[in-house]
Structure formats: structure tokens, C-alpha cells
């Protein structure tokens, strides 16, 4: 079943989903639906994030104080919850990105030298 496959991918994602969200929200205030669209666009459909699973993650980040939220009007005139990155969230994003880079460098190095 398709649901099962996407589950596998989201396993890979679990640690990095938070980072992706922070990165996207860091570009400017944005609502949940737009975040899910953006993730799919940027990753060229590689990350099949089941849309629903985005919200628990958003609420978790908000709860930790990494994201702030505000109810604002969209361009279509509807009210939506817009998220933005807090100071604490920015710090978190930087350290996570640094960690990620270190890791991907390390993995790349291993892959190269093992050839």
C-alpha cells in the first residue's frame, strides 16, 4: 500500500522534518497549507510528507517556543494561522543545520573513500 511506503520515507524524515519546517518558516510568516506545498515543491515530491503529519510537528515546535503563531488574513481574505520563527527557533535552526552539514560531509567522505 502507498501509505506504507510513505511511512518508510517519513521515518527518514522524522529527525529532519523539524529542520525543514524551521528553514521554510524562516523565510517569512507562512501558514500550514503553504508550508506543506512548499516542502513538496522544493523537494520535488521526494519527501512524501503526509500533509496531516505536518500539524503535530508545527504544534510541537510552537510548544517548544521555536515557532510563534498569529492569526492573519490571507490574500484570499480568509483567516489562517501564520507561523514565524522565534529567536530561539533561529538558534535551533542554525545548530541543526550545522549538525546536518557535519553529518552529510562525514557521510559523503565515507562514500567517497569507500569507493
Amino acid at each position: 500500500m502507498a501509505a506504507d511506503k510513505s511511512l518508510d520515507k517519513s521515518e527518514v524524515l522524522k529527525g529532519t522534518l523539524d529542520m525543514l519546517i524551521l528553514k521554510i518558516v524562516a523565510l517569512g510568516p507562512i501558514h500550514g497549507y503553504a508550508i506543506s506545498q512548499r516542502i513538496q515543491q522544493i523537494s520535488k515530491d521526494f519527501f512524501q510528507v503526509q500533509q496531516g503529519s505536518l500539524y503535530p510537528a508545527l504544534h510541537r515546535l510552537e510548544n517548544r517556543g521555536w515557532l510563534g503563531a498569529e492569526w492573519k488574513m490571507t490574500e484570499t481574505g480568509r483567516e489562517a494561522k501564520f507561523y514565524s520563527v522565534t529567536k530561539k527557533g533561529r538558534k535551533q535552526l542554525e545548530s541543526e543545520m550545522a549538525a546536518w552539514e557535519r553529518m552529510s560531509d562525514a557521510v559523503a567522505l565515507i562514500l567517497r573513500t569507500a569507493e
Partner: protein
Amino acid sequence: MRWLTLLFRKTKLDSQLDSELRFHVEQQTAENIAGGMNPAEARRRALAEFGGLESRKEEARDARGTHFVETLLQDIRFAFRILRKTPLITGIAILSLALGIGANTAIFGLIDAVMLRMLPVQNPEQLAQILFRSPTTSRLRPNVTNPIWEQVRDHQDAFASVLAWGATDFDLADGGQENTVSGIYASGSYFKALGVRPAAGRLLAPSDDVRGCRGVAVLGYGFWQSHYGGVESAIGSFIRLNGYSFPIVGVAQRGFSGTDVGTSLDVAIPICAEAILDGKNSSLDVRDDWWLSLMGRVKPGVSIEKASARMQALSQPLFGAVVPPAWPAKYQDVFRKYSFAVLPAANGAGGPFGLRSQYRQPLEILMFVVGLVLLIACANIASLLLARSAARQREIAVRLSLGASRGRLIRQVLTESVVLSGVGALLGVFFARWGSTLLVRLVSTQRSPVFLDLKMDSRVLAFTIGIAVLCGLLFGILPAFRATHVSPMSAMKEGQSQGAGGRSQSVAARWIVAVQVALSLVLLVGTALFIHTFTNLMALDAGFDRNNVLMVRTNIHNLQIPEPARAPLYGQMLAKLQAVPGVVSASQCWMTPLSGMQWDNSLAIPGGSLPTGADSDILLNWVTPDFFATMRTPVVEGRVFDARDTATSTPVVIVNQLLARTYFPGQNPIGKHLLANNKDMLSKQPMEIIGVTQDAKYTSLREDFRPEAYFPLAQIGAVGEDTTFEIRTAMTPGALIPAVRDAMASINKSASLQFTTLKQQADDSVLQEHLMAVLSGFFGGLALLLTAIGLYGVMAYVVTQRTHEIGIRMALGAQQTSILRLVMCDAAMVLVAGVVAGLLGSIWITRLVRQLLFGLTPNDPLTLALAIAALVAVALVATYIPARRAMKVDPMVALRYE
């Protein structure tokens, strides 16, 4: 506190979450429509892509962090709703829990009051009891003489302070029927060293306790409330104790009831006042009258072990200074080797005769028993819930498919069972209050009243809450896992609710019932042992007839009569009593049977030595001639005392058969002589044996017969002030009391009288055995009932499940009896497994109660057989009812059902 605010903003947050997700779905739908789908399809796709709207909401709420508390409240509300839906099951469960938890709380409350609770004084952990041991035995002795106390008081340096007290009864009445209160002789340091504060007035000071004192009295708080209404003006008034007046100087702080667990403290007077009450019999300077208990408070920072070592080092000089001069040299040497021992006494003094040592084992056994009952009750509820969980599979399946996680549902079901046991515990606390008060009343006798402060302290409360939660989890966990172990698909299908899941449920239920059977058997064996012990005690021939005997304990201390005039006064009293209408016969003696008191000494055979195997310690008593007729103790040889036996005639003695047989084996004891060691009370001349009586119990029904000798009152040298008249009547003994009181008053109004019956005294002496029989009978019965309900429930459930199968069998020609056999076999397997396990368990566990049994061993085959028979009989009845229903299954109906 953030989560608390969040908790209260829950509704708002929930609606925001709703609109946020709705916004997402609507955006997606709009986009899909824009992509060319029709609106319905667009929305369906949007929802599918989102994936489980409700479960996402649940996860998002989880992320909020307050979710646990929220859902807990929600679960509890839901639990109450579910429980109300099945009032019968809920009612049975709550009632059995209330009984089980109530019984546990009651017994634990008693254990707390008797063994665990600290004395309500300052820094109780600094208190230590000072005891001593003789080099010849290992047993600690709790009581010392006043000379020993004065040595310790004046010369010890092991403790910051030491205190002494001697428990006693005081009579408030000036003659006539006694009105006793429990009191102590207290050292001047008593209250100060314990750190007890006055509730009114002042407490004893060292200056109150000096030789030759006039005496002052301090009241206990409860006594002050009950006898003086708690008014301040009581201070300065006088209280009459045993006919002497003492000024009341103060009241001890509320809640303090002395250092002896189980007694109340009504009045305290200084030790020196003993000389006022006992006059020339005073024990203050007697070096072998053991009536005081000692405690010390360690210096800050000094351990009790250190104080103990120091006291031990002091033993030789302290004991050496107060050796009883009249003792034979051999015993004096032993006395010099006595050594002190110190034990922690934070929760009160305990002695070998104290309430604590007497009831420790029974209380521990009862705790075990009620624990088992509670386990059985839990097992019962577990099987009830299991049966119900089968019925709830549809509900659970719906919730699972709507996105609830299994863990979440398990939590819900567990919350239900904890709520259930919480309600049971609440009710149980009321049972417990009532039950423990009742228990204390049951163990309290006229002669030794028991006073316990049964307040529900934090320890008992924690215990009750603990077992309530534990029970809830215990009986909830299996049903919870079973109930949620369903595949939504199959459970949702019509008619499948009693499918595969149900099958494994009935296996689990069978296991539970087997455990119940085993536990009940252990309880029943215990019950049978204790009941047997009690009936053995009641059925044995005590050597006297306890029915229809009124006993009048008479104290003539107030009369201040010199010793030589006492016997003639007793003679007058006895004559008056014999003339009271309705009296069959009357007599007087010093030691009444089963009173717990004894007079014993050795008697020598003049010109000979004791044959081997003869017990040198003989129980003694002095009696008037009609004693044997009144007690109906048969005289098997010779004659009883009569008018011929006077102070000047040949000294005579009557012995029991055991003495005759062991002291004069193979000879005729009549005409033989015995010689007394005790020159005070008994004749200095050899005493001639004139009669032999049947053996009779003396201090307790449990003890073996011992050699006993009776002397005539007329030949007793030192007649005491505290004796007892026995009156045999054809009427109810109690009906005779007014006439007896008048008869005694006509001789002298000042004698103190205390009435009881020989039957009552005998019953009191086996109180503990009676209590164990009644209580274990009650709990054993309860366990049996619970097990029967459990077995019935499970078999009924199994039969309902197998209705279809049974229908097919019958349609294929099976006889009703073979169906019956089918069901009964099913039950028999459970029963046999349970009985075997229970039998092994009870053989293993009942070894521990050997000491409490009488006339049988823990593995008494008859007792075991009876217990098994009772259990099997009840189990068969409980199984037969559902089995009969299975037999009556109409194959047509059963098959159409599907």
C-alpha cells in the same frame, strides 16, 4: 504553570486547531477543483491526502503537552458513564472492592496503631526502652524493682534523661462495685523526659517524687474530658484513688496516652505515692518486686547502640548494689550477673505481655488473609470486566478505526478500573472505620481493656490509596489488553463479536478462576484450622464446669483490717452469700481459674526426693471447703476440706491427679506429706494429703495440666486483701448480682466488688483464638462466595459462547447428560488445577501458624479434606447452574441464532 493556563484555554485551542486544519483541507479542495475535479471528488482527495483528520488532531493536542491531564479528566468522565451503563456489574465490583479494601485498611490501621505509629511526644526516635536479661535465659525482661530504678536514676550516664512507670488500676469508688481506671505510677522525670506538655495546670516534677511524698495526680486528656468535662476548675480539686485523696495538679497534652500501646492513661501519680496506697505492703524498698518499666532519652547525637553498650557496662555496679538479701546465695549470684539491654522505643514500649507481642502474629496473619481476599476480589472483577470487554469489542473497534491508538484505549480502560477501585476504596474507608472499632471492642475485656487511637493518619491513607490504585491496575490490565486486542475489520462485521477474541478471553478467564480457587483454598484451610483450634479449646474438659458461676472479686483494702481479722470477715461474707436465695453453693479462693494470674512454688516430700520427671513447680491455691462443689471439680480420692480443718488442727493439702501420679508413682497418695518452702503463707509443718481431685486448667485452657495443690483458708498464714467468691446458681448468674451486692454491703459497705462470670473469664482467656476463628471464618466465607461468583460468571460466559456448538452437538444426537458432562469437565479442570495449587500453597504457608493452633497440626488431613470438600461443593453448585442451562439448549434456537 503554563500547562495549567493551557488547560483552561483548552476549548479555545481546540477550536483554533479545528479551523487551522479546516483551512488546510479547504485550500487543498479549492486547488483540486481548480485542477479540474468535481467538488465532491476534490474534497475526498484532499481528505485522503491529509490522512486521518481526527487522529492528526489527537496528535496535535498531544504535542501541546497538557494532553495527558485533559484526557485523564475526559477518561474519568467517560469511565463514570460506562460504569453507570452496567449497574449490576459495577455494583458487585464496587461492593466486593469496598469489602476487600475496607478489610485491608482496617487491619492495616490496627497494625499501624499497634506496631508502627510513633509515640506522640518530642523526638520519639531518641527514646529507648531499658530492659535486662538474666545470664540463664535469653529472654528480655521488661520490669525492674524500685531499688533498681533508683540506682539507674541516680547513677546512669548513658542517657540524657531516664524515666520509669508502673502500670496499675485505680478504683475511683469508695467501696461497693469497683470503678477502675487505668493509671500509672510515674517517676518525677516521666513527662519531662518524654517531652509531653501540659494541656492544663502542670505535670509531675522531680520534686513531686520523693520518699514520703503526699502525692499529686495528673490526669490524661481523655479522662479529663470524660470525667471533668475538660474544665480548668478540675485543677486543684481532689481525686479519690483506692480510697485516698490526691490533689489534681494538671492534665497531660491531648493525644498522649502513655507509653504502653493499647492502654489508656487516665491518672498518673508519682512512684513515691505507692507507699500511701499500699501502706506497709509498699514495694518501694522490696528488692524482688518487679513492677516498674524504664525508658531513656539518648543524648543528641548519641546512637541507641552506644547508650546500650554504656548501660551494659553499668550493669554490674547497679545490680550489685540492690541484691535481694533474702535470696539463696545461688540466685544472688545470678542476680549480680543481670545485664541491661536497650531497645529503640520510638513507637512505644513493648513487653512480652504487651498488646504488641500478643497481637503481632494474629495481626500479621489477618493482614495476609485480607490481602488474599482482596486478591480474590480483584480476580473476580477481572473476570467480570473480561466478560464485559467482549461486549465492548464493537465500541473499541469503532474507536480504533477512527484513529485512536491502542495505548490510548488501554489507558481509557485502565482509567475505568482505577475509577472503579477508587469508588470502592472510598466506601471501604467507611467499612474500615466501623470494622476496626468493632475489632478493638472485640479484643477488649473487662480485665484488660484495650485502648487504641484509630485515627486515619497519613500512613493509613497512603496505604489505602496505594492498594486502590494497585487493585485497579491489577484487575484492569488483562481486560484492557484483551479488549483492545481486536482487529477493527473483523469486529466491525455483524455477528462476529463472539469470535476468536472471545475464545482466548475465556482461556484467560479460566486462568483467573483457577488462581481464585487456589487462593480460596489457602484461606479455607486457614479458616478450618482456626475454627478447629477454637472448638478443640471449647470442647476440652477443663476440670471444672464454667456455666452458671458468678464470681465476685472482692478487695477489702479500703477497710484497713489487720491480717488476723481478715479470715473471720471472709467467713461472715461467705455465710451471707450462701444464704442468698438462688445460690446453690458458694466458696472463696485466692486464684480463680483462667484469670491469667498464678501462685506457684515448690513443695518438697519430707525425707525423700522428687521422683524423676516430676515438675518441681507446683500451682498453688487456697480455697474454702465448698470450692470443689462450686466449681464441680470431681474429687476422685479421699475427702475435701471441712470444719475439722482449723488453724490448730493437722495441716492438710489436697492435690490433683497429676501431682499424685508424678510425686508418688505407684503409691496411694492419701496420708503422704508435702513440705512448703514458703514459710509466710503456708504451714511450717509437713502437710498431710487428704484428697485427690481431677486435673483442672489453671492459668489458661491451652496449657497442659500441671501439678496443683490446694490448701484450706483456715490454715493460711497470710490472708490477702484481694480474693474472689464463687457462687454457683441455677439462675442466670447476672441476675444474682443485686442480691449479692446487698449481702456484701450488709457486712461492710467499703469492700470493692468486681463481678464477672466463670464463663466470661473462660471466654476472655481464649479471646484471641475466638477472634481468629470468627474473623478467618468471615473472610474464608467471603472468599468462597467471591470464588463461587467468579466460577459461575465464567462458566455462564463459556456456555453462552458455546451455545452454537452445543446446538450442533445436540442436533447431531448428543444426549443432555453428555452436554452436562462436557461443561462440567471444563469446570472440573479449572477446579482441579486450582485445588492442587491451593493445597501445595496452604501446606507451605500454614506451617507459619503452628504456634496459634491447639490440638492439631497445620497439615491435619481431616481439616484439609474438609476445606477441599467445602470448596468443591460450592464450586460444583456454581458450575451446575450454567451447565443445566447448556443442557436445556434448544438446537433449533441455537442454530437459527447465527
